[in-house]
């Protein structure tokens, strides 16, 4: 081969030695391997992993999911600034909580259809469409949280209010009266504050700093409406 063509790129300058001139001195021997196989060492491992969750017993699967849900419940009950709810979100917990709340809140079919407490479907729709609306609002304002992460946090933070509903139900078994009402009011207020604190701890960081109040206010309204439904529940 002649001299490298690169040296013809600079016409005007006189270099003592053209570039890559030493290349021609190299002889390619047959010893350097320039071909081979590319093996993916992970393949067998992946197959093994897939079959392990597919073949495990149903009890293992359910227990694993239940443990994940329970761990998130603990995070809601003792809210610290952590990423657990956001990182591995799931919607099982919100579904369980929403169904429990709606079952306890629905009015019995005995009383009149005109006015009364909400039906099961109404509670369900309020919770889920409320959560979707708040998520959309937060994303439209420029928050960088994903859709399902936000739904997960809002759903899990209904846990204190569900506990309040259980307590109210128990308290209502006693005789009615102003004391009864005061106890229920106190419990609902405390649990409402707990829900707000828990959801703010998880959601506040993902909002742009000058719009935090705009994004948190709908959360406040959402839990306020649910608290009102719990407080005004009257068994027939």
């Amino acid at each position: 081969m002649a001299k490298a063509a690169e040296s013809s790129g600079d016409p005007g300058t006189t270099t003592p030695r053209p570039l890559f001139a030493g290349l021609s001195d190299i002889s390619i021997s047959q010893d350097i391997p320039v071909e081979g196989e590319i093996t993916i060492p992970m393949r067998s491992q992946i197959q093994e992993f897939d079959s392990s969750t597919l073949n495990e017993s149903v009890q293992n699967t359910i227990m694993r999911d239940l443990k994940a849900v329970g761990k998130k419940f603990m995070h809601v009950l003792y809210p610290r600034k952590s990423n657990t709810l956001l990182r591995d979100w799931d919607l099982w917990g919100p579904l369980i909580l929403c169904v429990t709340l709606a079952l306890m809140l629905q009015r019995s079919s005995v009383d009149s259809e005109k006015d009364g407490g909400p039906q099961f479907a109404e509670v369900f729709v309020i919770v889920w469409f409320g959560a979707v609306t708040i998520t959309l609002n937060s994303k439209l304002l420029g928050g960088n949280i994903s859709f399902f992460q936000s739904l997960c946090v809002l759903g899990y933070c209904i846990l204190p209010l569900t506990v309040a509903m259980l307590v109210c139900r128990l308290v209502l078994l006693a005789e009615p009266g102003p004391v009864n009402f005061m106890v229920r009011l106190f419990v609902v207020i405390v649990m409402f504050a707990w829900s707000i604190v828990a959801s703010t701890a998880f959601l506040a960081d993902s909002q742009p700093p000058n719009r935090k109040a705009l994004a948190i206010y709908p959360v406040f309204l959402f839990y306020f409406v649910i608290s009102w439904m719990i407080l005004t529940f009257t068994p027939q």
Partner: protein
Amino acid sequence: MAAVDDLQFEEFGDAATSPAANPGATTIHIEGPSESPTHQPGLPRGSGGEEDDELLGNDDSDKTELLAGQKKSSPFWTFEYYQTFFDVDTYQVFDRIKGSLLPIPGKNFVRLYIRSNPDLYGPFWICATLVFAIAISGNLSNFLIHLGEKTYHYVPEFRKVSIAATIIYAYAWLVPLALWGFLMWRNSKVMNIVSYSFLEIVCVYGYSLFIYIPTAVLWVIPQKAVRWILVMIALGISGSVLAMTFWPAVREDNRRIALATIVTIVLLHTLLSVGCLAYFFDAPEMDHHLPATTAAPNQTAAAAKN
């Protein structure tokens, strides 16, 4: 030879032929994307033209309309298009609410506060809050009024929430639509100086409903006189905000049509507030606070007074 030269690749500048070594060669510098934000959150828009904004915004209205049209450049099926309607900061929302609570004569709400940045956050969440405020305080006031009656059994009246939602949202969206259509039609006949976009009208209506939230909470007080005074105050404030906003848009028109428009706007607003008061809040009856030995004469007396 010329053919051989033509076939050879021409090497362009790489690291070896840097500008330092080869000053004659031309080099192209390609930088990474600069980090300039598309909009700075702390800066209020239109601050340059603020001094020119008066009650009648002469050509500014056309220019700002054009600019508003240019701002939303994303197609309507993308998420970014709708994000432009939520481009407000906390202090801006508070300013707009304050502007709707304190109507200053001579200051136009749209010119002063909205300034071609209409948002949908305020109208939507103010209406949502108002729906729940009316439903909850109506329920509470009925409970307090009927507290002593023996035949009264408390019901949460959840059905009224959906009725309130239908009424409030229909008012806050359909009336601006009708008004906008009407103003566009008049604009085609009479050259008006000031014209508003649909979103700006929705914005004004939404923020003007804010005064009804504390009013609805105060309507719990079971005194007829107090309630009607509250209606007057709320109507005065929000009606004047609306009237002062829309008067410049119709004043070029035929005198009668302009007056009729303003009167219709205020009338619809009155209808909304009085209708909500009548439907969601039971009339307080004074007899319930009198001590009674048995329930029957008390109820017949109340029925007779009705």
